[in-house]
């Protein structure tokens, strides 16, 4: 079984590197704020949808999510009436596109706000990153970046997004509410970045169960076929 040892030794190296690599996964250097999001929690995702449509969609789109999708995904499953209210005169099959034009955005913020359909997949840290950004607006300790643009978790610390939840200088009494909003919208964004993820994990359980059985049967079959071979 020498090859086994060699194999295990060879595998240990990438495993160690992988472990050390993930420890530094957040490039910015600041550790992100921990947050619990459950992409299968309908109540949380629905609350997140509300935050998204009422706050974020003032500037951001989620073009890969259609109003029809909001009805069809079991994780959201809002009613047709609710969807009609959200979409206004846009078609049901349209993506959730902001009314802010790229030109106006550039004039107001100097940048076009990115589409958020895939944001938790497109940033290291995913939901934690979004949550940290939303609750990371501070006064610049060096006093260089103007208030509202200094964000501890944004690479370079100067963000063009004006504090959407009003985190900077918030009252202590509002803190729980703001954290809740940030958490909910992070959950919503995590869900829409891969809307079949719950279905995928669900099917995956059956696949793994089936494969375990199959592999066991194949192992027994192998042992049976090989039992007379001396080697």
């Amino acid at each position, binding site marked *: 079984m020498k090859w086994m040892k060699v194999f295990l030794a060879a595998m240990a190296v990438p495993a160690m590197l992988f472990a050390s690599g993930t420890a530094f996964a957040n490039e910015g250097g600041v550790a992100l704020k921990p947050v619990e999001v459950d992409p299968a929690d309908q109540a949380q995702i629905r609350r997140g949808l509300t935050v998204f449509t009422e706050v974020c969609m003032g500037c951001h789109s989620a073009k890969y999510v259609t109003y029809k999708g909001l009805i069809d995904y079991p994780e959201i499953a809002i009613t047709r009436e609710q969807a009609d209210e959200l979409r206004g005169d846009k078609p049901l099959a349209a993506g959730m596109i902001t009314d802010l034009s790229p030109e106006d955005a550039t004039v107001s913020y100097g940048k076009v706000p990115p589409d958020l*359909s*895939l944001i938790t997949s497109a940033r290291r840290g995913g939901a934690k990153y979004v949550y940290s950004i939303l609750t990371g607006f501070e006064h610049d300790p060096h006093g260089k970046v103007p208030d509202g643009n200094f964000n501890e978790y944004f690479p370079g610390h100067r963000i063009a997004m004006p504090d959407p939840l009003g985190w900077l200088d918030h009252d202590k009494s509002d803190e729980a509410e703001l954290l809740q909003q940030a958490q909910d919208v992070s959950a919503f964004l995590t869900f829409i970045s891969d809307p079949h993820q719950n279905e995928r994990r669900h099917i995956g359980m059956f696949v793994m169960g089936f494969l375990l059985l199959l592999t066991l049967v*194949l192992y027994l079959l192998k042992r049976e076929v090989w039992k007379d071979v001396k080697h």
Partner: protein
Amino acid sequence: MLNSIMKTKLFAWVDQRTGADAIIKSQLTEYAVPKNLNYMWNFGSLALLVLVLQILTGIFLAMYYKPSAAFTSGGYTVAFDSVERIMRDVNFGWLIRYMHAVGASAFFFVVYMHIGRGLYYGSYKGPRELLWIIGVVILLIMQGAAFFGYLLPWGQMSFWGATVITNLFGALPVIGEYLQQVLRGGFAVGDPTLNRFFSLHYLFPLLLAAIVGGHVHALHVVHSNNPEGIDVHNAEEKINFHPYYTVKDAFGVGVFLLFYCYIVFFNPQMGGFFIEVDNYVPANNLQTPPHIAPVWYLTPWYTILRSFPDKLLGVVAMGASLGILFLLPFLDRSKVRSSRYRPIFRQMVVLFFVTVIILGYCGHSAPTPTLKLVGQIATAYYFAFFILLLFLPKFEKTKPLPDHI
């Protein structure tokens, strides 16, 4: 089951016209294999399985994928949108796409294990030199196919990875610039690049399928090596491929699918190793990502490239690091095949495996002076390994070989 099928009338009809009976006998039921192959020999059949999976999932992806870099909205393109449509709207599109993306990494993992086994047990030595050489051709075509495929989603890493790699060809003297433009279909990576990469990404697996046929044929002429690395003449030391190795390979497939499906269903991005985070950002030719690196399976060669201060030298070294694999059977003149009986070679080859992993790590990480030095040392050993093989038989005292397995 095979036996009862072969006794039917229908089979007799087919046999008269194709010689199927003789083929099945010579390739399966009466194809003799050493009885002592260990589980490292399973990776060959697994590679074949993954190739088939990649081709099948790829055919379905191509039905929905659109190779166009034309902008749609929000900085996205037709190509990027079509991938997201597959992920969101096509029935089980997410499954097919994740199977294909994870399959690419699985393919390289399995093939690297297969190559490592060949190195460790001296499977590249006579009479299997050509078998090995065909294998190296397969590796090169795989790397090409993977590189072309990675451009298709038209994300940031797709775009900048392709830009960096096609740039390399520009470093070659005389033909470099021309070659680069032919690859790109213009002066920069753009819509024409995407179209030709898609075409080539579809072509290369067809080449692979054909060449894999040649690889298996060559194997069946010279037969399998074995962990002892000695020639097996005795009939008692051999068993027929079917049923013994078909059932052992089937068990291996079960174990492989457990790992593969676990990743596909529960961790398809593999923390950015299989689908990089930056590739969820649409390609933007005005914004270079802070850190450009190829996917893990190409990073060892990327490190070799980066280890040289001169670009041309780096490109030549990278080419040489792959090209030298062709020469391996002729560099290593030792009569003994298996590491089990070659104490010094054994240490060298294990160190070589570790070196390739270190090279891979260096290529994956953002460059720092320390990592650069580590990468250079690893590069030096990568080449030294092959050169040392030339002289090794002069001072290595091999252990006595057994008479039989």
